[in-house]
């Protein structure tokens, strides 16, 4: 894991004191709320429905046990004993007091964490593959590149007042587990025919009101110039992205309106210029960072056998554990989706337990996933039963990874001031209704957003649900056929929307159509792609 040196620590500490001063000036009336808002947002502080909300960055989703323990501590000391893990691999707290926010940032800084640029019209926290360093199919660990981007983008003086927010993701395997092409910039680390590593740039993806899948604008940028390339992408956007309409201000609209070719031409011209400006860190810096992401000291020659005599354990093992590239190990997903629970929420006690388990069983490492779960990336198979028992006792042992109960849901109208409808109650009802048939239904990614901003990734769900406001009443639209990953697709709306109970029935019927038409090992998505929308529509509305 990346470890701060004195420069990193000093920058984060300085930020805490800067924010303390900004809060003081706001409370004393030296700056207005309009002036203060972007400042607090760039420190992760929103004003939500019930209180201030603080979004803490978990860079590329990686944290150690001391950091996870601190997250639990903050939940207890400054909030109401819980936190919410988000689709951007971060965590947010719902009941924060402005006057305490600087102290929270100081506590975070003590474990090399921060809330820098987790909101605002700037480059946000970079996300990555939750199985980085463990996945068998990765070309290389993507996190050193994400860390290099974190440093480059932190307090970037030119790109802190962009037309709109800017999200980046870095992956390094063909299986895209980070929805890379649905980001403003998605970077895939690839190896070319000469066996050199480079960065493929996908620019202009996104969800929200106008979902778009990012086109590849450059399939291979050499690693000794990829920060410069990113700088060129951003400069063209900062200069020419639309600022007249908030809903057309994301880079996806610029790329779409200019056309991929023209946008790429402008980026390449800016890139050629910037190459003369010395903005690229030396490869030695990348090597310095890489040296901190070395493999943990795995035991070799250990058994791959696991005693599956406990059927509940065997089911969890089948469902929530991913093959590791190291023999004798797996990557474990801790489900934050108990049946009928609030997706992504964890109590302070659960956070502390996960911290302890990471220390004892996973070389002190945890990951937050964009599906709002937590991963222990390196667990010895011999430890799995003990681990599962500890998780299960704490309500963290649900066997439902990528199943219908593993629902992504934004906070919705229960917490969020932008929402039009509640997301969580819908997730809870679907989970309760359909979890009993989870094994029969198999892989099904269901994603719920409470408004068009799509924080719940509804466009990319095999089944997506979008909450809207219809004359002051919550209404839910159903989408089918979305997906993230290598075969990214956007969902299609089935037809008229439903009320809360109606949407649960509609999802129930849609899964019924799948089960009735499924051939062989087809997943829900495969069946949908083969038979199309019509049979689903008929069952849902017929």
């Amino acid at each position, binding site marked *: 894991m990346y470890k701060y040196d004195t420069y990193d620590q000093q920058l984060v500490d300085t930020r805490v004191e800067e924010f303390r001063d900004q809060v003081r000036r706001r409370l004393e009336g030296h700056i207005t709320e309009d002036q203060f808002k972007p400042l607090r947002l760039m420190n992760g502080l929103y*004003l939500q429905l019930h209180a*201030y909300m603080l979004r803490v960055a978990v860079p590329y989703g990686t944290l150690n046990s001391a950091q996870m323990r601190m997250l639990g501590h903050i939940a207890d000391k400054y909030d109401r004993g819980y936190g919410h893990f988000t689709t951007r691999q971060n965590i947010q707290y719902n009941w924060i*007091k*402005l*006057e305490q926010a600087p102290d929270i940032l100081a506590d975070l800084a003590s474990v090399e964490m921060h809330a820098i640029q987790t909101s605002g019209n700037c480059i946000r926290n970079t996300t990555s593959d939750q199985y980085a360093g463990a996945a068998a199919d990765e070309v290389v660990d993507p996190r050193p590149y994400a860390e290099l981007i974190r440093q480059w983008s932190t307090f970037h003086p030119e790109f802190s007042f962009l037309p709109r927010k800017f999200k980046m993701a870095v992956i390094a395997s063909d299986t895209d587990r980070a929805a890379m092409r649905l980001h403003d910039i998605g970077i895939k680390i690839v190896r070319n025919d000469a066996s050199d590593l480079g960065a493929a740039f996908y620019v202009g993806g996104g969800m929200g009101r106008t979902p778009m899948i990012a086109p590849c604008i450059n399939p291979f940028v050499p690693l000794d110039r990829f920060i410069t390339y990113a700088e060129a992408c951003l400069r063209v956007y900062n200069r020419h992205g639309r600022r007249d309409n908030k809903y057309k201000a994301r880079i996806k609209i610029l790329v779409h309106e200019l056309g991929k070719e023209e946008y790429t031409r402008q980026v390449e011209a800016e890139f050629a210029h910037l190459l003369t400006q010395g903005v690229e860190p030396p490869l030695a810096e990348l090597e310095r960072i890489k040296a901190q992401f070395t493999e943990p000291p795995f035991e070799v020659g250990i058994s791959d056998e696991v005693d599956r005599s406990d059927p509940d354990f065997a089911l969890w093992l089948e469902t929530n554990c991913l093959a590791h590239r190291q023999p004798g190990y797996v990557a474990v997903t801790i489900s934050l989706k108990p049946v009928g629970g609030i997706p992504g929420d964890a109590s302070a006690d659960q956070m502390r337990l996960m911290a302890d388990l990471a220390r004892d069983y996973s070389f002190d490492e945890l990951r937050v996933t964009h599906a709002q779960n937590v991963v222990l990336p390196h667990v010895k198979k011999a430890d799995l039963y003990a681990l599962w028992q500890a998780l299960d006792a704490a309500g963290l042992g649900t066997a439902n990874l990528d199943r219908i109960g593993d629902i992504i849901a934004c906070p919705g109208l*229960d917490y969020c001031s932008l929402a039009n409808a*509640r997301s969580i109650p819908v997730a809870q009802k679907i989970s309760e209704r359909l979890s009993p048939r989870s094994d029969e239904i198999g892989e099904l990614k269901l994603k719920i957003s409470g408004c068009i901003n799509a924080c719940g990734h509804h466009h990319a769900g095999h089944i997506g649900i979008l909450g809207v406001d219809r004359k002051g009443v919550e209404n839910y639209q159903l989408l089918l056929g979305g997906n993230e990953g290598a075969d990214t697709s956007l969902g299609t709306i089935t037809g008229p929307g439903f009320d809360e109970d109606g949407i649960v029935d509609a999802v129930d019927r849609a899964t019924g159509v799948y089960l009735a038409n499924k051939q062989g090992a087809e997943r829900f998505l495969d069946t949908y792609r083969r038979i199309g929308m019509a049979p689903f529509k008929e069952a849902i509305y017929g």
Partner: protein
Amino acid sequence: MKILTGNDLKTGAVVWWDGVSWSLHVEDAIDAGDQAETILAREQATRRVNAAYAIDATREEGGVRPAHIKERIRALGPTVRADLTLKPADPEAGNWVI
């Protein structure tokens, strides 16, 4: 009636204009009538409230009911965490929102 809501600047707590100051309870909200804009401007300028705005509401048996679900959720708390609402002992409180 027109009632005023906002958040306490320091704590972020949801508050309602009761004619003298800002209350945590929507039942205390009074009709601001045509004074809404004046009160909002004054109260925000003195930082007694933050991000305040006026909404429609009705006075009903048992209290004041904001016209839109969003403010009813603001008035109660998250419907999925009854324990964190202003009426933690009332399991039916969430029905008021809908």
